[in-house]
C-alpha cells in the first residue's frame, strides 16, 4: 500500500480526546488527538458507557497475588468475582497448585443484609483446615466495601487462631483501576517479607519480581541468572511460595518487570530494607540481554567474572536465534502491527521485537500506563504512531482500520476486534500459552507472529477481498 495522505485519527469520545496522541509532526496531531506538545492524560477513571478494556481494582490484586501457589486465595464477595478469575491464567507451579482453585465466600442476600464477617470467619477456618496453606489472602470486593465488613479484624483473629499469616487485600473493585489493585496486593504481600531467616542467603542473590510464570517463563529467566552464578531467593509471584517471599528481604537486589504490578512492592522493600531494585524486561533480544548485563554490572564488584558469564549466555542464545529470525523476517518485512496491552512497559519491548522482524508498530496503547510510560513510548515510536490510554473497541477498531495493520497484539478481549477486521492476532496477555520471555520467547513470538500474519485465510476475508478488488479496479481504470 502507498502512504496515506495525512490520516485523520478519529476522536470517538470527545471526553477522551486528550487520552489519544499521534507522534511526530507528520500527522497534524493537534487537530485530533492531544496537543502537539506531549501531554497524554492517563490514570483517570474510565468513561461511563465507553466500554473500556480495563478491569477493576480487584482484578489488579488478583493478577499479582494469584500465582503464589501454596497460599489460599479467598475472594470475599458474591460468586462472580471468584468465578471469573478461576484458573484463567496459566501461571505454572513447580509444586503445589492451591492457587488454581477458586475460593469464594459466595455471599448471599442475607449476608449482605446481616454482614459477611461470620461467614468469612467460618470460610477461612474450614478452608485452612482442609488445605493447610502456608498463608491466606482475603480479597475484598465491591460489596464488602459497602457493607463494611471488618476483614482486617477477621483476618487477625484467624491468623492468631491458626498460626499462619492471613492477609487482607483491600481490593474493592470500585476503589480505582487495576493499578490501585496492584498497590493493594503489594501492601498485603509486604507484610510477609522480612519474617523469615535469611542467614544462608548469598550476597550474590536476587528476587525476580513482576513475572507470573505463564507457560513456564520464570523458569527460563531463573535459569539465565543461575547460569550467571546468582541465587534466586524469591520469584514474585510466578511459581511463588510463601516461605520464599518471607525471606525475600535477604536478597541483594530486586529485579522488577511489569513495573505497574510489582514496582510498589520493590519500593516498599527499598524503603524498609534499603533493598535496591532494577527495572528490567525479558521480552525481545535487546531488553533480555540488557536485563542480564544490568544485573552483571550490579554484581561485578562482588564477582568480577559475572559479566563474562552474562556475555557468554547472550552470545550463545542470540547466536542461535538470529538465523531463525531472519527466516521469519523474509515474510514479515514491511508489515504493520498494533499493540494494546495492560501495562505500557511491555510495549517498549514489543516495539523493539517487531523491528527485529522488519515490522513497524503503528498503534500502541495500554490500560494503565503512566505519564512517564507514555512519554517514553512517544520517544521511541515512529512518527505517525497512535498512542492511546484506556481505549475501547470503537477506538481500537477505528485506529486499526486507519493504520491498516497486519497484526494486533493484545488479550482475549482484543482478539475479536482483530478477527472481525480480518487481521492476525497474538495473545500477549496473561492467558497466553506460549513462553514469550527470554531469547527462546523471542523465537516463539516471531513464530506466532509469522503463523498468524502469513496465514492464507486473510485473503478470503471480505475487507481484504474488497480492498484487493478496489485496487484491481483502480488499476484497470488507470490503464
Amino acid at each position, binding site marked *: 500500500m502507498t502512504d496515506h495522505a495525512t490520516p485523520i485519527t478519529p476522536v470517538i469520545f470527545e471526553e477522551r480526546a486528550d487520552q489519544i496522541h499521534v507522534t511526530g509532526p507528520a500527522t497534524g496531531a493537534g487537530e485530533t488527538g492531544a496537543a502537539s506538545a506531549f501531554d497524554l492524560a492517563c490514570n483517570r477513571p474510565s468513561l461511563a458507557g465507553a466500554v473500556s478494556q480495563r478491569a*477493576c481494582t480487584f482484578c489488579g490484586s488478583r493478577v499479582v497475588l494469584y500465582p503464589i501457589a501454596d497460599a489460599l486465595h479467598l475472594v470475599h464477595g458474591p460468586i462472580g468475582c471468584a468465578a471469573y*478469575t478461576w484458573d484463567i491464567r496459566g501461571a505454572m507451579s513447580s509444586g503445589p497448585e492451591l492457587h488454581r482453585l477458586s475460593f469464594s465466600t459466595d455471599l448471599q442476600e442475607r449476608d449482605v443484609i446481616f454482614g459477611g464477617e461470620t461467614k468469612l470467619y467460618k470460610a477461612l477456618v474450614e478452608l485452612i483446615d482442609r488445605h493447610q496453606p502456608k498463608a491466606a489472602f482475603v480479597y475484598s470486593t*465491591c460489596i464488602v466495601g459497602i457493607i463494611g465488613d471488618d476483614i482486617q479484624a477477621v483476618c487477625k483473629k484467624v491468623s492468631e487462631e491458626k498460626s499462619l499469616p492471613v492477609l487482607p487485600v483491600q481490593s474493592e473493585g470500585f476503589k480505582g483501576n487495576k493499578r490501585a489493585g496492584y498497590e493493594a496486593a503489594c501492601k498485603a504481600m509486604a507484610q510477609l517479607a522480612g519474617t523469615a531467616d535469611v542467614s544462608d542467603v548469598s550476597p550474590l542473590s536476587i528476587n525476580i519480581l513482576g513475572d507470573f510464570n505463564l507457560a513456564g517463563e520464570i523458569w527460563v529467566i531463573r535459569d539465565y541468572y543461575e547460569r550467571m552464578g546468582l541465587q534466586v531467593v524469591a520469584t514474585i509471584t510466578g511459581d511463588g511460595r510463601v516461605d520464599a517471599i518471607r525471606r525475600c528481604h535477604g536478597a541483594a537486589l530486586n529485579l522488577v518487570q511489569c513495573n505497574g504490578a510489582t514496582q510498589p512492592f520493590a519500593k516498599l522493600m527499598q524503603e524498609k530494607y534499603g533493598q535496591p531494585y532494577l527495572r528490567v524486561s525479558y521480552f525481545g533480544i535487546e531488553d533480555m540481554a540488557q536485563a542480564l548485563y544490568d544485573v552483571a554490572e550490579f554484581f561485578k564488584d562482588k564477582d568480577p567474572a559475572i559479566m563474562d558469564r552474562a556475555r557468554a549466555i547472550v552470545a550463545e542464545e542470540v547466536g542461535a536465534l538470529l538465523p531463525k529470525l531472519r527466516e521469519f523476517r523474509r515474510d514479515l518485512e514491511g508489515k504493520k502491527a498494533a499493540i494494546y496491552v495492560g501495562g505500557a512497559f511491555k510495549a517498549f519491548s514489543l516495539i523493539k521485537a517487531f523491528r527485529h522482524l522488519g515490522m513497524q508498530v503503528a498503534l500502541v496503547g495500554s490500560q494503565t500506563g503512566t505519564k512517564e510510560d507514555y512519554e517514553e513510548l512517544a520517544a521511541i515510536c515512529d512518527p505517525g504512531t497512535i498512542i492511546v490510554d484506556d481505549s475501547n473497541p470503537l477506538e481500537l477498531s477505528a485506529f486499526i482500520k486507519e493504520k491498516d495493520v497486519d497484526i494486533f497484539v493484545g488479550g482475549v478481549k482484543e482478539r475479536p476486534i482483530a478477527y472481525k477486521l*480480518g487481521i492476525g492476532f497474538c495473545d500477549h496477555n496473561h492467558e497466553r500459552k506460549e513462553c514469550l520471555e527470554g531469547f527462546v520467547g523471542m523465537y516463539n513470538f516471531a513464530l506466532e507472529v509469522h503463523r498468524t500474519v502469513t496465514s492464507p485465510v486473510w485473503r478470503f476475508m471480505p475487507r481484504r477481498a474488497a480492498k484487493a478488488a478496489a485496487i484491481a479496479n483502480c488499476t484497470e481504470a488507470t490503464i
Partner: protein
Amino acid sequence: MSDATTLERTPKGPTMKTTSPDFVSTTNACKLCTPLGASIVFRGIEDAIPFLHGSQGCATYMRRYIISHFREPMDIASSSLGEKQAIYGGGPNLKQGILNVMKKYEAKMVGIATTCLTETIGDDVAMLLHEFKQEFGDLELPDLVHVSTPSYSGSHMEGFQAAVKAVCDQMPLPVTAENPRHAGVNLLPGFVSPEDIRNAKDIFERFNLPVTILPDYSETLDGEILDDYQKLPPGGTPRTSLKAMGAARATVEFGATLHPDQSGAAVLQDKFGVPAHRLPTPIGLRASDAFFHTLQEIAGQPMPLRYARERGRYLDALVDGHKYISGKRAVVYGEEELVVGLTGLLAEIGIIPVLVASGGNSGLLKEKIAAVCGDLLRELPDVRPNIDFFEIEHETKALQPDLILGNSKGHRIARDAGAPLVRVGFPIHDRFGAARMPHLFYTGTQSLFDRIVNAIIEKRQADNPLGWSYV
C-alpha cells in the same frame, strides 16, 4: 442452603461423603453471576447494547468470559462507578453512560442490568431512568429496559431469566387497533446455543408460524465476518417484534426448572392474555416429542415430513448405537435446565446417570430429574443442586463414571477420572465451535447422541491394545 439429602444410588457407586455439608464457602463454583445471564439476553436483541450499572470490572470480566466461549465481540457497557459514586450514588454515571452508548454505538435499546454494588448502595434504576427520559426528552431516546440482577442472589440462569422476563414486561405494547392480535408465536428458548436458535427458526417456518425468539443471539453471538467492524452486531430479536409480543397467538417457553414467577411466558399471559405453553427444554426424544406436539396443536397442522424423518433417523441411530453405551454410567453437571434435558436423554438411550449436579438452586431439580427418568431407571441418580466443582470432583472420584457430560470447567475432573468429557453447556472455552453445537429437537439430540457414542468408542479404541479399525 445445604441440601444434602441423597436419593438412592446405583449399587456400583460407593457412597462417600467426602465434603462437609456444613461448609459455607464455595470452591470452584458451578455457576456464574446474575448480570452475565442478563448481558447475554440483551446481546440477543436488535441494535441493543448490554449495560451494567456497577464498577468497571464486572463488565470486563463478563466480556472476557463470554468472548472465550462464543469467540465473538461482546461489548458490555458499564457505568464505571468509582469510590465517589459508590458513596453518593451512581445516577450521573448511569445517565452519562447511556448517552454515550446512544451516541457512539447508536444503540436503539439499552439493556440495563444492576450489579451487587448498585443494588447495595440502593440506586433506584427505575427512577433514574424516569429522570433520564425527562431530562433528555428532546433527544431521540432508545428503548430502556432494566432488570435487577444483584450477583448475591441466584446464578447466571436467574439473571438470564430475569432479563427475559423484564423484556416481556417492559417492551410489548398493549393490544390496540395499531397493535392488533397476530398469528405469530413467541418463543422463549432459555440459554441455548446460537445453532439451536437457528434450528428453532427453521422449525417454526416449516410450521408456517411467524416467530419472535427472545433472545435471538444466533447472529449477534455467531456472526459472519463482514467487510467492516460492526459497532453493534447485526441480528437479534427485532424491536418491532418485541413490541408486538403481547399480541401474539401463543408463547412457547422452555424451562422445566423455571418457577412461574420467573416466567416471561407467564407475564405475557397475565398482562396481555397470550396463552403460555411452558415446556421442558427439548433435549432427548420425549422432550422433543412434547415440543413438536405443542407446535402441531398451535399451528393446527400435522408434523412436517422433514421432522418425522429426523425423528425416524434418530430412532434408527438409537438401535445402531445402543450396544456401545448400554449400561454405561455418567456424571452430568451444569445449569439445572440443561442437566434435566441431558439426564432425560441419557436415561432414554440406556446410559445410567449416577450423579446429576448443578450450581443452581431452584428447588425443583430433584422433582424434574425424577420426572424425566423415573420410569426408565431402576434407581434415580444422586441429584445435587447448589453444589460446587470441589464436591463434584469428590463424588466423581468415588463414582468412577464411564462418561462425563458438562462444560469445560470439568476438564481436569474428567482427566483425573480417566473418563471422556462430552462438552455441553457454558462455558466451552477449551474447544472450538461451541456456538455451532446443536442440542435441541431431534437433530440436536441426534448430535448429542453421536458425540456420546463416539466418546465411548474413542476411549475404548484408545485403551485397546489391538487398536482395531472397525468398531
